[in-house]
Protein backbone atom coordinates (compact mmCIF):
# COMPACT_ATOMS: atom_id res chain seq x y z
CA UNK A 1 0.00 0.00 0.00
CA UNK A 2 1.28 3.44 -0.86
CA UNK A 3 0.03 6.76 0.36
CA UNK A 4 1.49 10.05 1.47
CA UNK A 5 -0.53 12.04 3.96
CA UNK A 6 0.22 14.63 6.56
CA UNK A 7 -0.47 15.75 10.11
CA UNK A 8 -3.14 18.43 10.02
CA UNK A 9 -3.90 18.73 13.72
CA UNK A 10 -2.44 17.67 17.07
CA UNK A 11 -4.58 17.49 20.19
CA UNK A 12 -4.12 16.60 23.83
CA UNK A 13 -6.00 16.72 27.12
CA UNK A 14 -4.85 15.59 30.58
CA UNK A 15 -8.13 14.20 31.92
CA UNK A 16 -11.42 12.68 30.78
CA UNK A 17 -14.15 15.14 29.72
CA UNK A 18 -11.80 18.14 29.51
CA UNK A 19 -11.56 20.04 26.21
CA UNK A 20 -8.63 19.08 23.97
CA UNK A 21 -6.05 21.75 23.22
CA UNK A 22 -4.63 22.20 19.73
CA UNK A 23 -0.86 21.80 19.80
CA UNK A 24 2.02 22.61 17.46
CA UNK A 25 3.86 19.44 18.42
CA UNK A 26 3.49 16.29 20.53
CA UNK A 27 6.06 14.14 22.27
CA UNK A 28 5.45 10.42 21.64
CA UNK A 29 6.81 8.04 24.25
CA UNK A 30 7.60 4.59 22.91
CA UNK A 31 5.41 1.88 24.41
CA UNK A 32 3.47 4.36 26.55
CA UNK A 33 1.64 7.17 24.80
CA UNK A 34 1.48 10.90 24.16
CA UNK A 35 3.17 13.00 26.82
CA UNK A 36 0.57 14.82 28.87
CA UNK A 37 -2.37 13.04 27.31
CA UNK A 38 -4.91 11.26 29.50
CA UNK A 39 -4.29 7.87 27.91
CA UNK A 40 -0.65 7.88 28.98
CA UNK A 41 -1.41 8.65 32.62
CA UNK A 42 -4.51 6.49 33.18
CA UNK A 43 -6.79 9.50 33.37
CA UNK A 44 -8.95 8.66 30.34
CA UNK A 45 -12.62 7.69 30.46
CA UNK A 46 -11.67 4.15 29.43
CA UNK A 47 -8.55 3.84 31.59
CA UNK A 48 -10.32 1.31 33.82
CA UNK A 49 -10.05 -0.98 30.80
CA UNK A 50 -6.37 -0.58 29.91
CA UNK A 51 -5.38 -1.36 26.35
CA UNK A 52 -1.81 -1.51 25.11
CA UNK A 53 -2.91 -0.64 21.61
CA UNK A 54 -4.40 2.73 22.54
CA UNK A 55 -1.24 4.76 23.03
CA UNK A 56 -2.05 7.28 20.31
CA UNK A 57 -5.20 7.84 18.27
CA UNK A 58 -5.82 9.22 14.76
CA UNK A 59 -8.80 10.77 12.97
CA UNK A 60 -9.29 11.76 9.32
CA UNK A 61 -9.87 15.41 8.41
CA UNK A 62 -11.89 14.04 5.50
CA UNK A 63 -14.43 12.62 7.97
CA UNK A 64 -14.96 16.05 9.49
CA UNK A 65 -15.65 17.37 6.01
CA UNK A 66 -18.06 14.50 5.28
CA UNK A 67 -19.99 15.18 8.49
CA UNK A 68 -20.43 18.77 7.41
CA UNK A 69 -21.26 17.95 3.80
CA UNK A 70 -23.64 15.04 4.40
CA UNK A 71 -25.09 15.75 7.86
CA UNK A 72 -24.55 19.48 8.41
CA UNK A 73 -22.64 18.65 11.58
CA UNK A 74 -19.79 20.98 12.45
CA UNK A 75 -17.26 18.94 14.43
CA UNK A 76 -14.02 20.78 15.02
CA UNK A 77 -10.68 18.93 14.92
CA UNK A 78 -10.19 19.41 18.67
CA UNK A 79 -13.64 17.89 19.30
CA UNK A 80 -13.15 14.39 17.85
CA UNK A 81 -11.02 13.58 20.91
CA UNK A 82 -8.21 11.81 19.03
CA UNK A 83 -4.58 12.96 19.19
CA UNK A 84 -3.81 13.42 15.50
CA UNK A 85 -5.96 14.79 12.69
CA UNK A 86 -4.68 13.34 9.42
CA UNK A 87 -5.19 14.23 5.76
CA UNK A 88 -4.67 11.82 2.93
CA UNK A 89 -4.23 8.76 5.14
CA UNK A 90 -6.57 5.74 4.66
CA UNK A 91 -6.83 5.00 8.39
CA UNK A 92 -9.37 2.18 8.06
CA UNK A 93 -6.95 0.18 5.90
CA UNK A 94 -4.02 0.40 8.25
CA UNK A 95 -5.04 -2.01 11.02
CA UNK A 96 -2.08 -4.31 11.70
CA UNK A 97 0.32 -2.14 9.70
CA UNK A 98 3.16 0.16 10.71
CA UNK A 99 3.46 3.69 9.40
CA UNK A 100 5.69 6.70 9.93
CA UNK A 101 4.54 9.99 11.38
CA UNK A 102 7.43 12.39 10.86
CA UNK A 103 10.38 10.61 12.44
CA UNK A 104 8.22 8.37 14.65
CA UNK A 105 6.75 4.96 13.86
CA UNK A 106 3.43 3.60 15.07
CA UNK A 107 1.64 0.28 14.65
CA UNK A 108 -2.12 0.41 14.15
CA UNK A 109 -3.97 -2.00 16.43
CA UNK A 110 -7.68 -1.53 15.78
CA UNK A 111 -10.30 0.87 14.54
CA UNK A 112 -11.65 3.22 17.16
CA UNK A 113 -15.29 2.65 17.98
CA UNK A 114 -17.35 5.72 18.73
CA UNK A 115 -19.01 5.91 22.14
CA UNK A 116 -21.89 7.90 23.53
CA UNK A 117 -19.36 9.66 25.72
CA UNK A 118 -18.48 11.96 22.80
CA UNK A 119 -22.13 12.99 22.44
CA UNK A 120 -22.24 13.98 26.11
CA UNK A 121 -19.12 16.07 25.72
CA UNK A 122 -19.89 17.77 22.43
CA UNK A 123 -23.68 18.00 22.78
CA UNK A 124 -23.84 16.76 19.18
CA UNK A 125 -25.72 13.67 18.01
CA UNK A 126 -22.81 12.08 16.22
CA UNK A 127 -22.57 8.52 17.50
CA UNK A 128 -24.25 6.87 14.54
CA UNK A 129 -22.64 9.00 11.85
CA UNK A 130 -19.21 8.16 13.26
CA UNK A 131 -19.70 4.41 12.98
CA UNK A 132 -16.94 2.90 10.80
CA UNK A 133 -15.04 6.21 10.66
CA UNK A 134 -14.24 7.12 14.25
CA UNK A 135 -10.49 6.82 13.78
CA UNK A 136 -7.62 4.46 14.51
CA UNK A 137 -5.77 3.30 17.64
CA UNK A 138 -2.06 2.60 17.55
CA UNK A 139 1.00 1.64 19.59
CA UNK A 140 4.10 3.80 19.51
CA UNK A 141 6.97 1.72 18.13
CA UNK A 142 9.50 4.51 17.78
CA UNK A 143 9.02 7.63 19.87
CA UNK A 144 10.04 11.23 19.37
CA UNK A 145 8.51 14.57 18.53
CA UNK A 146 5.85 15.02 15.86
CA UNK A 147 4.80 18.36 14.38
CA UNK A 148 2.00 19.92 12.38
CA UNK A 149 2.64 19.26 8.69
CA UNK A 150 4.72 16.12 9.27
CA UNK A 151 4.47 13.54 6.50
CA UNK A 152 2.58 10.31 7.22
CA UNK A 153 3.50 7.32 5.02
CA UNK A 154 3.93 3.54 5.21
CA UNK A 155 7.06 2.33 6.96
Amino acid at each position, binding site marked *: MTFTGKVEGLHV*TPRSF*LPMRNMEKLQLIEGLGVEGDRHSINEAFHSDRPEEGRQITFFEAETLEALKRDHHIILKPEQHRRNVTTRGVPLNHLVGRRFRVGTCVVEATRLTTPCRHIEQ*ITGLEIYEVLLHRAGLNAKIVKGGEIHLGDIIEPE
Partner: protein
Amino acid sequence: MLKRIHRVTTVVSRIEQIDPRVKRFHLQDPGGWELPPFTAGAHIDIHLPSGLIRQYSLSGDPARDDTYTIAVQREEDGRGGSRELHDDVQVGDELLVSLPRNSFPIAADAAVTMVAGGIGITPFLSALPSLLASGRPFVLHYCAGSLDRASFVPMLQEMGLADRVRFHFSETGQRLDLARVIAGLDEDGHLYCCGPARMLEAIETQAGHLGERLHVEHFGIAAGVDPAYEVLLARSGQVVPVAPGQTMLQALRAADVHVPASCEGGVCLDCKCRWLEGTPIHRELTMPLDDRKEWITPCVSGSAGPRLTLDL
Protein backbone atom coordinates in the same frame (compact mmCIF):
# COMPACT_ATOMS: atom_id res chain seq x y z
CA MET B 1 -18.57 2.77 43.09
CA LEU B 2 -18.03 6.01 41.22
CA LYS B 3 -14.73 6.24 39.34
CA ARG B 4 -12.88 9.55 39.09
CA ILE B 5 -12.33 9.10 35.39
CA HIS B 6 -16.09 8.96 34.83
CA ARG B 7 -16.64 12.45 36.19
CA VAL B 8 -15.00 15.85 35.82
CA THR B 9 -12.35 16.23 38.51
CA THR B 10 -12.24 19.66 40.14
CA VAL B 11 -10.61 21.21 43.16
CA VAL B 12 -12.10 23.96 45.27
CA SER B 13 -9.94 26.97 44.40
CA ARG B 14 -11.78 29.62 46.43
CA ILE B 15 -14.70 29.91 48.86
CA GLU B 16 -16.49 33.23 49.41
CA GLN B 17 -18.83 33.81 52.31
CA ILE B 18 -21.44 35.99 50.61
CA ASP B 19 -23.53 36.42 53.73
CA PRO B 20 -24.23 34.34 56.85
CA ARG B 21 -26.25 31.79 54.88
CA VAL B 22 -24.68 31.69 51.41
CA LYS B 23 -21.23 30.62 50.24
CA ARG B 24 -19.85 30.69 46.72
CA PHE B 25 -17.54 27.85 45.74
CA HIS B 26 -15.15 28.24 42.80
CA LEU B 27 -14.10 24.94 41.22
CA GLN B 28 -11.18 24.48 38.82
CA ASP B 29 -9.25 21.70 37.13
CA PRO B 30 -6.37 20.47 39.33
CA GLY B 31 -3.87 21.41 36.60
CA GLY B 32 -5.53 24.65 35.54
CA TRP B 33 -6.86 23.18 32.27
CA GLU B 34 -10.04 24.50 30.68
CA LEU B 35 -13.24 22.88 31.97
CA PRO B 36 -15.98 21.52 29.69
CA PRO B 37 -17.97 24.51 28.43
CA PHE B 38 -21.45 25.43 29.65
CA THR B 39 -24.21 27.79 28.65
CA ALA B 40 -26.18 30.24 30.78
CA GLY B 41 -28.74 28.46 32.95
CA ALA B 42 -26.79 25.16 33.11
CA HIS B 43 -26.27 23.11 36.26
CA ILE B 44 -23.86 20.40 37.43
CA ASP B 45 -24.16 17.45 39.77
CA ILE B 46 -21.73 17.69 42.68
CA HIS B 47 -20.56 14.40 44.17
CA LEU B 48 -20.00 15.14 47.83
CA PRO B 49 -17.45 13.21 49.90
CA SER B 50 -20.29 11.58 51.86
CA GLY B 51 -21.73 10.11 48.67
CA LEU B 52 -24.58 12.57 48.37
CA ILE B 53 -25.16 13.97 44.88
CA ARG B 54 -26.65 17.43 44.58
CA GLN B 55 -27.47 19.72 41.67
CA TYR B 56 -26.38 23.36 41.65
CA SER B 57 -26.77 26.00 38.96
CA LEU B 58 -23.57 27.39 37.54
CA SER B 59 -23.58 31.05 38.45
CA GLY B 60 -20.35 32.23 36.85
CA ASP B 61 -19.78 33.74 33.42
CA PRO B 62 -19.82 30.98 30.75
CA ALA B 63 -17.10 32.93 28.90
CA ARG B 64 -14.71 32.09 31.72
CA ASP B 65 -13.63 28.62 30.67
CA ASP B 66 -11.51 27.58 33.65
CA THR B 67 -13.96 27.92 36.54
CA TYR B 68 -17.30 26.53 37.67
CA THR B 69 -18.93 28.71 40.32
CA ILE B 70 -21.85 27.58 42.48
CA ALA B 71 -23.70 29.49 45.18
CA VAL B 72 -24.95 27.35 48.04
CA GLN B 73 -27.47 28.46 50.63
CA ARG B 74 -27.16 26.55 53.87
CA GLU B 75 -30.46 24.78 54.56
CA GLU B 76 -30.61 23.79 58.23
CA ASP B 77 -33.59 21.52 57.63
CA GLY B 78 -32.54 20.30 54.20
CA ARG B 79 -31.33 16.85 53.20
CA GLY B 80 -27.72 17.50 54.18
CA GLY B 81 -25.98 18.50 50.93
CA SER B 82 -25.75 22.22 51.66
CA ARG B 83 -24.65 21.61 55.27
CA GLU B 84 -21.87 19.32 54.08
CA LEU B 85 -20.66 21.89 51.57
CA HIS B 86 -20.77 24.68 54.14
CA ASP B 87 -19.26 22.79 57.06
CA ASP B 88 -16.88 20.25 55.58
CA VAL B 89 -15.65 21.35 52.16
CA GLN B 90 -12.45 23.41 52.21
CA VAL B 91 -10.23 25.14 49.67
CA GLY B 92 -8.04 22.49 48.04
CA ASP B 93 -10.58 19.68 48.40
CA GLU B 94 -11.29 17.57 45.35
CA LEU B 95 -14.90 17.44 44.13
CA LEU B 96 -16.11 15.26 41.28
CA VAL B 97 -18.79 16.88 39.18
CA SER B 98 -20.87 15.96 36.14
CA LEU B 99 -20.69 17.56 32.75
CA PRO B 100 -22.86 20.69 32.73
CA ARG B 101 -26.45 20.13 31.61
CA ASN B 102 -28.89 22.82 30.67
CA SER B 103 -32.62 22.37 31.20
CA PHE B 104 -33.07 26.13 31.56
CA PRO B 105 -31.44 27.73 28.51
CA ILE B 106 -31.99 31.43 27.93
CA ALA B 107 -33.51 32.19 24.51
CA ALA B 108 -30.95 33.76 22.21
CA ASP B 109 -33.13 36.10 20.20
CA ALA B 110 -35.98 37.42 22.33
CA ALA B 111 -36.64 39.91 25.09
CA VAL B 112 -36.00 38.24 28.44
CA THR B 113 -37.84 38.77 31.71
CA MET B 114 -36.38 36.92 34.68
CA VAL B 115 -38.01 36.39 38.07
CA ALA B 116 -35.77 35.09 40.85
CA GLY B 117 -36.90 34.08 44.32
CA GLY B 118 -34.13 34.05 46.93
CA ILE B 119 -31.29 31.70 46.04
CA GLY B 120 -33.17 31.10 42.77
CA ILE B 121 -31.10 34.02 41.48
CA THR B 122 -28.19 31.67 40.71
CA PRO B 123 -29.00 30.53 37.14
CA PHE B 124 -29.59 34.14 36.14
CA LEU B 125 -26.17 35.23 37.38
CA SER B 126 -24.62 33.16 34.57
CA ALA B 127 -26.89 34.80 31.99
CA LEU B 128 -26.31 38.44 32.91
CA PRO B 129 -22.82 38.94 31.39
CA SER B 130 -23.87 37.86 27.90
CA LEU B 131 -27.21 39.67 28.14
CA LEU B 132 -25.37 42.85 29.06
CA ALA B 133 -22.83 42.37 26.28
CA SER B 134 -25.43 41.63 23.64
CA GLY B 135 -27.48 44.73 24.31
CA ARG B 136 -30.69 42.67 24.21
CA PRO B 137 -33.63 43.94 26.24
CA PHE B 138 -33.96 42.20 29.60
CA VAL B 139 -35.19 42.81 33.11
CA LEU B 140 -34.47 40.87 36.28
CA HIS B 141 -36.90 40.85 39.20
CA TYR B 142 -35.11 39.72 42.37
CA CYS B 143 -37.54 38.79 45.15
CA ALA B 144 -36.72 38.03 48.78
CA GLY B 145 -38.29 38.29 52.19
CA SER B 146 -36.03 41.17 53.11
CA LEU B 147 -32.88 42.94 51.93
CA ASP B 148 -30.65 40.88 54.20
CA ARG B 149 -32.03 37.66 52.68
CA ALA B 150 -31.20 38.82 49.15
CA SER B 151 -27.59 37.70 49.09
CA PHE B 152 -26.60 39.04 45.69
CA VAL B 153 -27.89 42.62 45.85
CA PRO B 154 -24.38 44.11 46.21
CA MET B 155 -23.07 42.07 43.28
CA LEU B 156 -25.99 43.08 41.07
CA GLN B 157 -25.56 46.71 42.04
CA GLU B 158 -21.93 46.53 40.95
CA MET B 159 -22.80 45.10 37.55
CA GLY B 160 -24.20 48.34 36.15
CA LEU B 161 -27.65 46.90 35.48
CA ALA B 162 -29.37 50.21 36.37
CA ASP B 163 -33.15 49.86 36.03
CA ARG B 164 -32.83 46.43 34.43
CA VAL B 165 -32.81 44.92 37.92
CA ARG B 166 -35.77 45.49 40.26
CA PHE B 167 -35.73 44.42 43.89
CA HIS B 168 -38.85 43.19 45.67
CA PHE B 169 -38.78 42.67 49.45
CA SER B 170 -42.03 41.45 51.02
CA GLU B 171 -40.97 42.72 54.47
CA THR B 172 -41.24 46.28 53.22
CA GLY B 173 -44.38 45.73 51.19
CA GLN B 174 -42.61 45.71 47.82
CA ARG B 175 -43.96 42.35 46.70
CA LEU B 176 -43.65 41.48 43.03
CA ASP B 177 -46.83 42.29 41.10
CA LEU B 178 -46.74 39.17 38.96
CA ALA B 179 -49.86 40.01 36.94
CA ARG B 180 -48.26 43.30 35.95
CA VAL B 181 -45.02 41.62 34.94
CA ILE B 182 -46.90 39.13 32.76
CA ALA B 183 -49.07 41.83 31.21
CA GLY B 184 -45.97 43.87 30.42
CA LEU B 185 -44.22 41.12 28.42
CA ASP B 186 -43.46 41.77 24.76
CA GLU B 187 -45.47 39.75 22.26
CA ASP B 188 -42.54 37.39 21.73
CA GLY B 189 -40.86 37.94 25.09
CA HIS B 190 -39.84 34.98 27.25
CA LEU B 191 -40.44 34.70 31.01
CA TYR B 192 -37.93 32.77 33.15
CA CYS B 193 -38.52 31.94 36.79
CA CYS B 194 -36.45 30.20 39.43
CA GLY B 195 -37.35 30.14 43.08
CA PRO B 196 -39.24 28.26 45.77
CA ALA B 197 -42.08 25.91 44.83
CA ARG B 198 -44.83 28.29 45.97
CA MET B 199 -43.56 31.04 43.70
CA LEU B 200 -43.27 28.71 40.73
CA GLU B 201 -46.78 27.36 41.27
CA ALA B 202 -48.14 30.89 41.22
CA ILE B 203 -46.25 31.70 38.04
CA GLU B 204 -47.27 28.50 36.29
CA THR B 205 -50.89 29.22 37.18
CA GLN B 206 -50.87 32.82 36.08
CA ALA B 207 -48.53 32.58 33.11
CA GLY B 208 -49.35 29.09 31.80
CA HIS B 209 -50.88 30.66 28.68
CA LEU B 210 -47.41 31.73 27.56
CA GLY B 211 -46.73 28.12 26.56
CA GLU B 212 -43.20 27.72 25.26
CA ARG B 213 -42.36 31.29 26.27
CA LEU B 214 -42.59 30.33 29.95
CA HIS B 215 -39.56 28.63 31.53
CA VAL B 216 -39.36 27.52 35.14
CA GLU B 217 -36.39 26.01 36.98
CA HIS B 218 -37.22 24.00 40.07
CA PHE B 219 -34.91 23.35 42.94
CA GLY B 220 -35.42 21.45 46.13
CA ILE B 221 -37.12 18.08 46.06
CA ALA B 222 -40.43 16.66 45.06
CA ALA B 223 -41.96 14.48 47.77
CA GLY B 224 -44.87 12.20 48.46
CA VAL B 225 -45.88 9.18 50.49
CA ASP B 226 -47.92 6.39 48.95
CA PRO B 227 -49.60 3.39 50.54
CA ALA B 228 -47.92 0.04 49.91
CA TYR B 229 -47.89 -1.25 46.35
CA GLU B 230 -45.80 -3.60 44.28
CA VAL B 231 -43.73 -3.19 41.17
CA LEU B 232 -43.71 -5.93 38.54
CA LEU B 233 -40.54 -6.03 36.47
CA ALA B 234 -41.77 -7.11 33.05
CA ARG B 235 -38.51 -8.53 31.73
CA SER B 236 -37.55 -10.66 34.71
CA GLY B 237 -41.00 -11.30 36.16
CA GLN B 238 -39.69 -10.24 39.57
CA VAL B 239 -42.19 -8.58 41.91
CA VAL B 240 -40.76 -5.89 44.21
CA PRO B 241 -42.85 -4.70 47.16
CA VAL B 242 -42.77 -0.99 47.99
CA ALA B 243 -43.57 -0.19 51.62
CA PRO B 244 -45.34 2.99 52.75
CA GLY B 245 -42.77 5.76 53.11
CA GLN B 246 -40.28 3.91 50.95
CA THR B 247 -39.48 5.23 47.49
CA MET B 248 -39.77 2.97 44.49
CA LEU B 249 -36.05 3.48 43.91
CA GLN B 250 -35.20 2.38 47.45
CA ALA B 251 -37.37 -0.71 47.02
CA LEU B 252 -35.68 -1.58 43.71
CA ARG B 253 -32.26 -1.21 45.30
CA ALA B 254 -33.28 -3.36 48.24
CA ALA B 255 -34.22 -6.04 45.73
CA ASP B 256 -30.78 -5.73 44.04
CA VAL B 257 -32.26 -4.15 40.95
CA HIS B 258 -29.75 -1.58 39.74
CA VAL B 259 -31.24 1.68 38.45
CA PRO B 260 -28.77 4.53 37.91
CA ALA B 261 -29.84 7.55 39.91
CA SER B 262 -28.45 10.92 40.74
CA CYS B 263 -30.47 13.71 42.36
CA GLU B 264 -33.15 11.42 43.83
CA GLY B 265 -35.39 14.47 43.87
CA GLY B 266 -37.27 14.21 40.59
CA VAL B 267 -35.10 16.76 38.82
CA CYS B 268 -32.24 15.15 36.91
CA LEU B 269 -34.27 12.26 35.40
CA ASP B 270 -31.24 9.95 35.50
CA CYS B 271 -33.35 7.17 37.00
CA LYS B 272 -36.24 7.33 34.57
CA CYS B 273 -37.72 3.95 33.62
CA ARG B 274 -40.30 3.02 31.02
CA TRP B 275 -43.63 2.03 32.61
CA LEU B 276 -45.98 -0.38 30.89
CA GLU B 277 -49.10 -0.92 33.01
CA GLY B 278 -50.77 0.55 36.05
CA THR B 279 -51.51 4.10 37.15
CA PRO B 280 -48.35 5.99 38.01
CA ILE B 281 -48.32 9.04 40.26
CA HIS B 282 -45.82 11.38 38.66
CA ARG B 283 -43.92 13.71 40.94
CA GLU B 284 -41.00 14.56 38.65
CA LEU B 285 -40.43 18.26 38.47
CA THR B 286 -38.76 18.49 35.11
CA MET B 287 -40.17 15.78 32.82
CA PRO B 288 -42.23 17.07 29.88
CA LEU B 289 -45.87 16.01 30.23
CA ASP B 290 -45.78 13.99 27.01
CA ASP B 291 -42.84 11.95 28.29
CA ARG B 292 -44.82 10.96 31.37
CA LYS B 293 -47.00 8.79 29.13
CA GLU B 294 -43.97 6.54 28.70
CA TRP B 295 -41.53 7.24 31.53
CA ILE B 296 -41.50 7.47 35.30
CA THR B 297 -38.83 8.42 37.83
CA PRO B 298 -38.80 5.86 40.66
CA CYS B 299 -36.93 8.24 42.96
CA VAL B 300 -40.03 10.33 43.72
CA SER B 301 -42.96 8.89 41.81
CA GLY B 302 -45.45 6.29 43.02
CA SER B 303 -48.42 4.20 42.07
CA ALA B 304 -52.12 4.99 42.47
CA GLY B 305 -52.99 1.31 42.17
CA PRO B 306 -51.76 -1.87 43.87
CA ARG B 307 -49.35 -2.75 41.05
CA LEU B 308 -47.18 -0.87 38.57
CA THR B 309 -45.36 -2.65 35.75
CA LEU B 310 -41.96 -1.36 34.67
CA ASP B 311 -39.95 -2.29 31.57
CA LEU B 312 -37.06 -3.66 33.63
